[in-house]
């Protein structure tokens, strides 16, 4: 299979190269924002004479190889003025292009020619988020959060009320690969899930693949969220920030040397504890409830062919009182080297160190009780981009990750009481993919394959359990011994047939493997969830997905409409047996159940991109089910996130140059849950008798948020705005959980917990430039 794919792609690439071999020259370079010098990712380049074109890669680099001749190139990017450049191509040319921000509607109109990227690209199931849009959408407590904004898109829904965790196309929350500048993020949440770790101020580009993931990505089965940080302003120093009710943030960026290197540092701190203190009794004088995070990134160009990036993220959550506390966080460090071998071959080499750990400590009667877990990753990868001719863009590369997973260390007064040996593993991937225009302007495809492996490495003592969860055998592996290796072949194909510049049909098939699994027995995304590796017992998760989509633009590309349908088959799913728990469990593998799943649905999306009134409407009709022999008597049951109907409506209206208003409305079918079907008494206490797993539904969820942004000042040197938002405007009591018990008088009752009622907030944003 893989051999055939290799041969096929080699044939296609070489075949089309040789056909146009004589007198070909390459024009290549970077596209940048003229005001900041930031590279523009996935920006369009169109050859007007031939209609051929390309887009920049994740580093803002493009390369076009054309026969000798005179051409008019059109460079465009959403929200920026399109630029036309006339070139005489009789040798290889390096052409860096800077675009100006389109400030008026008239100027934006210029870019219409290349505004149907959504129709012609091979990508489907892909969501890109305009960071400018994201700033206008109302949010909880005024804290901008891209993870909450993507939840408003079709096929993506929130983990639970206020949560930054998300589900994609019926998959589980741990099946999303979240990359921040190529570094994996294991827990994307702060403060028990209410805020994401991503500080919007420091972000440049966000892209979510719900399906059709390119072969470059591996390791998770549901989706890929690829987040790119800003590089920092190359032209001049800028300081921006915001002050809100519960948090403040500040970002400084500027050139290390003009147009050669830049740096950006961004920090954020919440102070919910300080805000809450006046409302609490004196007993809580020592309450701590906050998080902070810092993003920093520096880059420097050495000559015209090399560029080095160094970036880091550090975030910590602190939650506790004098005698008890949670403490968890992520730290990542990334070093990246871009190298241009030639104007047709681009290399990106990245080393990532990532450290995610969480601890929980409490003072019990003078004894310090501590529980801690963590994951450390050392990751090295190379991504090559090869532009042999305008018809093909080849991406290939490899990566290797050394994982160290430490589970459940339990200590009293710093003396380890229970330690579970750490799991060590090596995960590798080799991939190749080609994006090919097979029939000019009509039929194009992106196809590739990824070969992955995952090896458990000793020293480790593996316990084997019988059906009664008793240890029947212990296998001892030596230090450095590879005691179990899984191999995987992951084919990925996307195809696009363009009927006209206004409409197209797309299809995709992907197979994804996942070797790390998150065990969670709670719904709240607490930091006590546990990551475990694939082992001889726990097999890698596999998901096959097929999708078909129709894309239509109208109104001069001002409106986008799409309908996509998908079917997913999930294998080797992992869950707890009834009563299994990750917390402080030293024999987790004895508590696991293995099963399969299926998810399918159809997503409708209508978006208005231009004009005073913009926004979108999305509707998803979907089903997601699981089957485990050891759960629910082996019968199929609905996944918790099986939300039959999911509607999001987002509207933004520009009243004047200074005033924007916005609103978003969400409705989805209540989560699948297990309700009591009776009750009985044991040992003097009432016990609920439960029915089939997830056979009932929580009440439907719906919520309206309102926002208003007023630009106070927009001068050359200083900008400021005030942003007001009302979360849950009509104060709907959406159930976060429902408990069934007896009240004080002994009467049975169902109690609904609603996390957030109406929450108004105000934030002041500023920028010195």
């Amino acid at each position: 299979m893989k051999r055939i794919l290799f041969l096929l792609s080699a044939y296609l690439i070489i075949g089309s190269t040789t056909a146009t071999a004589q007198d070909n020259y390459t024009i290549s370079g970077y596209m940048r924002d003229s005001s900041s010098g930031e590279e523009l990712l996935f920006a369009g380049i169109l050859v007007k004479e031939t209609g051929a074109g390309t887009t920049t890669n994740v580093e803002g680099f493009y390369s076009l190889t054309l026969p000798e001749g005179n051409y008019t190139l059109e460079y465009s990017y959403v929200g920026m003025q399109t630029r036309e450049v006339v070139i005489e191509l009789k040798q290889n040319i390096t052409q860096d292009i800077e675009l100006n921000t389109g400030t008026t509607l008239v100027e934006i109109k210029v870019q219409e020619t290349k505004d149907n990227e959504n129709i012609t690209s091979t990508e489907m199931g892909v969501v890109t988020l305009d960071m400018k849009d994201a700033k206008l959408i109302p949010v909880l407590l005024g804290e901008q959060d891209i993870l909450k904004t993507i939840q408003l898109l079709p096929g993506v829904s929130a983990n639970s009320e206020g949560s930054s965790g998300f589900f994609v196309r019926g998959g589980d929350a741990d099946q999303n690969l979240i990359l921040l500048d190529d570094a994996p993020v294991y827990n994307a949440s702060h403060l028990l899930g209410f805020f994401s770790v991503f500080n919007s101020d420091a972000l440049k580009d966000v892209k979510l693949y719900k399906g059709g993931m390119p072969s470059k990505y591996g390791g998770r089965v549901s989706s890929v969220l690829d987040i790119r940080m800003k590089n920092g302003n190359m032209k001049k120093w800028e300081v921006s920030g915001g002050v809100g009710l519960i948090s403040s943030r500040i970002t400084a960026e500027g050139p290390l040397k003009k147009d050669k290197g830049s740096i950006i540092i961004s920090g954020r701190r919440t102070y919910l504890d300080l805000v809450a203190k006046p409302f609490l009794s004196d007993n809580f004088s020592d309450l701590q409830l906050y998080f902070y995070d810092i993003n920093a990134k520096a880059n420097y160009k050495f000559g015209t062919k090399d560029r080095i990036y160094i970036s880091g993220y550090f975030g910590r959550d602190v939650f506790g009182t004098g005698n008890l506390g949670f403490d968890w966080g992520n730290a990542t460090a990334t070093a990246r080297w871009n190298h241009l071998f030639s104007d047709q071959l681009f290399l990106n080499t990245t080393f990532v160190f990532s450290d995610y750990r969480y601890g929980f400590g409490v003072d019990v009667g003078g004894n310090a009780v501590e529980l801690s877990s963590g994951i450390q990753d050392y990751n090295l990868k190379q991504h090559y981009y090869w532009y042999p001719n305008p018809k093909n863009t080849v991406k290939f590369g490899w990566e290797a990750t050394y994982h160290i997973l430490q589970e459940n260390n339990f200590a009293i007064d710093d003396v380890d009481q229970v330690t579970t040996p750490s799991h060590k593993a090596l995960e590798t991937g080799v991939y190749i993919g080609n994006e090919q225009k097979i029939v000019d302007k009509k039929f194009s495809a992106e196809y590739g394959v990824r070969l992955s492996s995952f090896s458990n490495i000793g020293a480790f003592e593996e316990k084997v359990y019988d059906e009664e969860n008793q240890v029947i055998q212990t296998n001892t592996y030596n230090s450095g011994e590879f005691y179990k290796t899984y191999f995987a072949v992951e084919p990925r194909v996307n195809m696009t047939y363009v009927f006209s510049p206004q409409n197209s049909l797309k299809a995709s098939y992907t197979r994804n493997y996942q070797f790390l699994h998150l065990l969670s027995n709670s719904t709240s995304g607490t930091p006590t969830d546990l990551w475990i590796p694939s082992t001889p017992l726990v097999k890698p998760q596999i998901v096959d997905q097929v999708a078909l989509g129709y894309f239509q633009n109208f109104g001069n590309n001002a409106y986008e409409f799409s309908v996509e349908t998908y079917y997913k088959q999930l294998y080797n799913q992992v869950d707890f047996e009834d009563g299994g728990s990750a917390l402080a469990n030293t024999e987790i593998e004895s508590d696991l159940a293995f099963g399969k799943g299926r998810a399918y649905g159809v997503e409708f999306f209508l978006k208005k991109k231009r004009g005073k009134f913009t926004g979108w409407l999305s509707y998803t009709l979907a089903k997601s089910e699981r089957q485990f022999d050891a759960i629910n008597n082996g019968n199929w049951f609905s996944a918790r996130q099986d939300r039959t109907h999911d509607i999001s409506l987002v509207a933004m209206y520009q009243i004047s140059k200074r005033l924007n208003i916005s609103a978003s409305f969400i409705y989805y079918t209540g989560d699948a849950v297990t309700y009591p079907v009776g009750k009985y008494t044991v040992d003097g206490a009432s016990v609920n008798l439960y029915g089939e797993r997830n056979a009932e539904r929580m009440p439907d969820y719906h919520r309206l948020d309102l926002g208003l942004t007023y630009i106070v000042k927009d001068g050359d040197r200083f900008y400021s705005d005030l942003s007001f938002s009302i979360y849950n405007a009509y104060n709907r009591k959406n159930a976060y959980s429902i408990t069934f018990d007896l009240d004080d008088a002994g009467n049975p009752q169902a109690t609904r917990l609603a996390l957030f009622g109406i929450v108004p907030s105000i934030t002041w944003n500023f920028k010195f430039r």
Partner: protein
Amino acid sequence: MKHILYILGWSFLILSLSSCEDVIELELKNDDPQLVIDAHLNASSQEAQVWMSYSNSFYDNTDSETIDDAMVQLIREDGTSIIVEAKGNGYYKTENINAAVDETFKMQVTLTNGNSYEAIAKVPRPISIDSVSMIATAFGGGFGGQSDSSKQNYQLLTYWKDPVGTEDYYRLKAKKNGADLTDTYVVLDDAGANDENQIFSPFFELFEEGDSVEFSLLSLDKNTYDYFSNLADIQGQGFGATTPFNPENNWSGDILGYFGVIQVDQKSIYLPQ
């Protein structure tokens, strides 16, 4: 290990900060009534007690139907049996059993319709509470408004010694001012014992000055431990809830309840004003 769970439970209290709770009416399905046999042998008092009834619908506020005409026997390892006598209202009891540590008992229940159920349990070793200590705590007054913030709140810790070289299982129960605290199951094994093999456990409940509290430390057999830890898992609803399920038990048929053997020790504490 379980006792870390109770410690964790405290922290979720903090989240009640911005939330609101209210009682709602839901339409619930009703299963047919199922047989419940709630039975234990207390090896400290040498009594066996059994309650036999049927489950009823969740919103049913009346007493559930009981069974008074079953034949209940305790069978010793040597095959001799003791009748557990019906006392009416679904309650059965017998005394002076003379159970010894590590002795295995089988309970056999036969209904008048001929259906018969069996369960086996082993007598655990007796255990005694060393001490109960009180720690003034910040929790309580601020959130939820359930306790009087003008009064000092206490966290109570119960200490005992864990026998070396055996797997032991415990449950801690409490009575506050004479009333059983039934909202929480505090169930733990000996994995959390410290260097001196001492175990301490908080009780997942706040006490305040003026309370008198009686703790019962139950030493459990493994089946009973598993059963009550499952109940504890289900109980932890809301934050950190598991998907609810019906706990497995040691009865031979597909019925509810359990049969366990326990040892009990008690200690009382008064929280001065």
